[in-house]
């Protein structure tokens, strides 16, 4: 369960607030979509939640409560306890987010290595199980192969598995499908929905692409220039958008992709 209360973030090198006081809640087992054009502050928000902001370069105020604990008050050591354990993150470009010189299996294990005292065999078993969960065919071969030997889709599945493996209470997905081509995109979104349904893991899906959010999320929040302009059930929002900005975003989607 994630609650964001009046989150405000300002970078020293720019006058305008990157995030101008937003409130957002991701209930247990829910997939919330956060949508907005680039520069709307959605990625900064994600970085703030993940604690990956360079605190020396900006002012942060407000609260980010994950299962009741305010992440902003944690010092880096205690925040590290959270990251990868109760909070998983999946990045946009899987090929860049994977260390080219390290086998996929060992990277997926990393969270377990840091947060648990599992033996190497136990970790491998857990990862293979996660690989199966994300529908990777032949998990053993994927475990032993290098990132460049896997397709884009498989790489993203490895990333998702890496986030899943420690049973986090929330997974943060920053544009998870943008770098993938259309066909694979659909598979990954379907996978996310199935994982959410089966494992009741709440997810915050961040994207600039309304059609992606529409297909995967039950509730959606629209962000513009650091503020949330509209929030509500996906269906209602897409059929009768209230805020003019949301209307414009909807018109921008080519009709063909709007079909369910």
């Amino acid at each position, binding site marked *: 369960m994630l609650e964001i209360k009046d989150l405000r973030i300002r970078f020293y090198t720019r006058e305008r607030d990157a995030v101008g006081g937003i409130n957002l809640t991701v209930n247990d087992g829910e997939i919330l979509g956060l949508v907005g054009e680039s520069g709307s502050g959605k990625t900064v928000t994600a970085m703030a939640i*993940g604690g*990956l902001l360079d605190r*020396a370069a900006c002012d942060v105020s407000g609260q980010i409560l994950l299962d009741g604990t305010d992440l902003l008050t944690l010092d*880096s050591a205690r925040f*590290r*306890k*959270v*990251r*990868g*354990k109760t909070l*998983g*993150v999946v*990045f946009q*470009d899987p090929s*860049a*987010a*994977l*260390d*080219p*010189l*390290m086998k996929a299996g060992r*990277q997926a294990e*990393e*969270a377990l290595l*840091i*947060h648990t005292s599992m033996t190497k065999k136990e970790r491998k078993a857990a990862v293979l199980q996660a690989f199966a969960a994300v529908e990777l065919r032949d998990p053993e071969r994927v475990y032993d192969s*290098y990132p*460049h*030997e896997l397709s884009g889709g498989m790489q993203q599945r490895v*990333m998702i598995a*890496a*986030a899943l493996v420690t049973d986090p209470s929330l997974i943060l997905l920053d544009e998870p499908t943008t770098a993938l081509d259309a066909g694979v995109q659909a598979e990954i979104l379907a996978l996310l929905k199935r994982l959410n349904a089966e494992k009741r893991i709440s997810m915050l899906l961040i994207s600039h692409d309304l059609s992606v959010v529409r297909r995967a999320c039950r509730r959606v929040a629209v962000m513009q220039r650091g503020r949330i302009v509209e929030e509500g059930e996906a269906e209602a929002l897409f059929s009768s958008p209230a805020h003019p900005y949301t209307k414009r975003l909807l018109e921008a989607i080519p009709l063909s992709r709007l079909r369910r």
Partner: protein
Amino acid sequence: MKTVFKKAAALALTLLLASFLVFLAFQLIDGDPARTMLGAEATEARVTELQAELGLDKPFLTRYFGWLGGFVTGDFGVSFSSREQVGAILAPKIGVTVTMSLLSFALIVLFGVPAGLFSARLRHPAAVAAQTFFDQLFMAVPPFVLGVGLSWVFGILLKVFTPLEFPSLTADPAGALRYLFFPALSLAVPRAAMTARMLRASVREELNKDYVLASMARGASPRQAEVRHVLKNALPPTVSFLAQTVAELVGGGVIVEQVFGVPGLGGVLVDAIGKRDYPVACTVIVILAFFVILSHAAADAVNLAADPRRRGGEARV
């Protein structure tokens, strides 16, 4: 396997080309070995007699292939000036030069790599500027100037070693290493700074890559992320730079050997060139060339092994 064979053939071809160019160079430079050896007073008859003895009267190509034939079979011929087997003259000297170069290389890695890693983490602009200033400062010091300074400070004042009294490598290895430390250091300092600079640039580049963020997102501390992921990715460009440095070390050593009176290949080369002692000069140059090319090949091999992408054959680059 095919690539290794192709690499070896290329290496041999370059060595051949280098040796031919050296022989040609000596053909063009003034100064006649026989006359230089016999000194100004020698009579014409004596000079021509010696020229015949040394085979200098034979045409250029026969001499070249004669020497090459000998070289390939390990017989480096006889030195014009001291009538000793070239192999015998060079044997003790190669050891000294190789030891000095390796010691220098170790110092470069010992100073360069940690400095590079440490400075990569510096964020504060003033620190970054200072770091670059020190790099440039160390890079701007010519080895022979540093050499003179070191031999005065550590040789004359602190008496850590006795300049110009080089203990033989075989008889007193510890003393020899202590002596060689200083020429090695004067060669190493500018190159260590270059290595640090090169490594810092590539570490910084890798630090900005997403996979570091991904690793931290899994709970790794910046230090852990760096050790586990960044180092391996940042090394390849530095390794090929280090290989090129080994090549420069072998060449650069010539001058530093003079400053410290180290009986290495450098001294022999300069003397042989002065005396137009072709067999010695050509052999030394080919040996130096061999080290240079070997270090390049070694670098490629290391990079290839370290990078699965290229090893797999489907080179994405």
